[in-house]
């Protein structure tokens, strides 16, 4: 069973898949049980896919899949990601794994050097895409892959996402001025994602 976090991340990832379909970009959705190490390694090796979008839990050195199974580890199979364009919407993998993944290759890694966090409105737990609170955080992160599949470079995708976060932070500051009690707490978390988002490797990588 998914937790709230992965439920939201999956719902937002479905928007990226929708955009890819619209653009005619072939995709493979390795979600739920198929988000395991064996399937992921098989897919990356056999298809030589250029873009890899990981969506779930992680830490400095690992990306996890279904039931927190480690699917990519800096100590084991990070070389699989060499020469790929990777976006990891997962905690902390930008701190160490991201650097290892782009070593000696022309790929890039966009991720977070610390926790990726977001506020959600519990009223919308069953319908994450209607949650305007979570949208402050998840729309800018979706923008990374959307920009990439629309022909932007890794640097442009990274900057576009940060620009959207900056815009959202400005909106929250305006809400704070209007005495909206949740605005400053929301801004604090968005700032952490903004500051933690990193791009390693080739800054001019194209999908």
């Amino acid at each position, binding site marked *: 069973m998914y937790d*709230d976090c992965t439920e939201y991340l999956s719902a937002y990832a479905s928007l990226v898949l929708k955009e890819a379909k619209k653009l005619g970009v072939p995709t493979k959705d390795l979600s739920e049980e198929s988000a395991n190490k064996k399937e992921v390694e098989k897919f990356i090796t056999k298809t030589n896919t250029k873009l890899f979008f990981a969506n779930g*839990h992680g830490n400095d050195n690992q990306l996890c899949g279904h039931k927190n199974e480690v699917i990519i580890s800096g100590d084991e199979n990070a070389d699989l990601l060499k020469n790929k364009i990777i976006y990891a919407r997962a905690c902390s993998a930008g701190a160490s794994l991201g650097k290892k993944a782009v070593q000696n290759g022309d790929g890039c890694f966009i991720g977070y050097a610390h*926790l990726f966090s*977001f*506020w*959600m409105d519990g009223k919308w737990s069953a319908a994450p895409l209607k949650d305007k609170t979570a949208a402050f955080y998840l729309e800018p992160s979706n923008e990374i892959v959307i920009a990439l599949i629309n022909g932007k470079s890794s640097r442009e995708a990274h900057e576009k996402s940060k620009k959207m976060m900056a*815009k959202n932070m400005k909106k929250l500051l305006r809400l704070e001025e209007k005495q909206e009690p949740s605005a400053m*707490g929301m801004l604090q978390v968005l*700032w*952490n994602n903004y500051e933690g988002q990193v791009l390693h490797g080739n800054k001019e990588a194209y999908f």
Partner: protein
Amino acid sequence: MKMQNSMDLSLKELVLARLDIMPPNFKLSVGDKGTFTKQELMYHVNEGDSIGVQVIEMQLNFIKALTTGKLIEAINKDE
């Protein structure tokens, strides 16, 4: 890691006050640590456990961004 000195205590008070004004239906996803209501977050901050420390660090990081002007710089950069 436990809160020890008076500066830590002031920061803890600030974090608790900030959490207390969040709407009751809001929940914070703190990476792989889980998703927490404000009451749960306040409990962890009071306990000073790893989740509480994480929340306090976020607050500290934000205060630094405010006081150094990094936040305003980031917001104005894209105007």
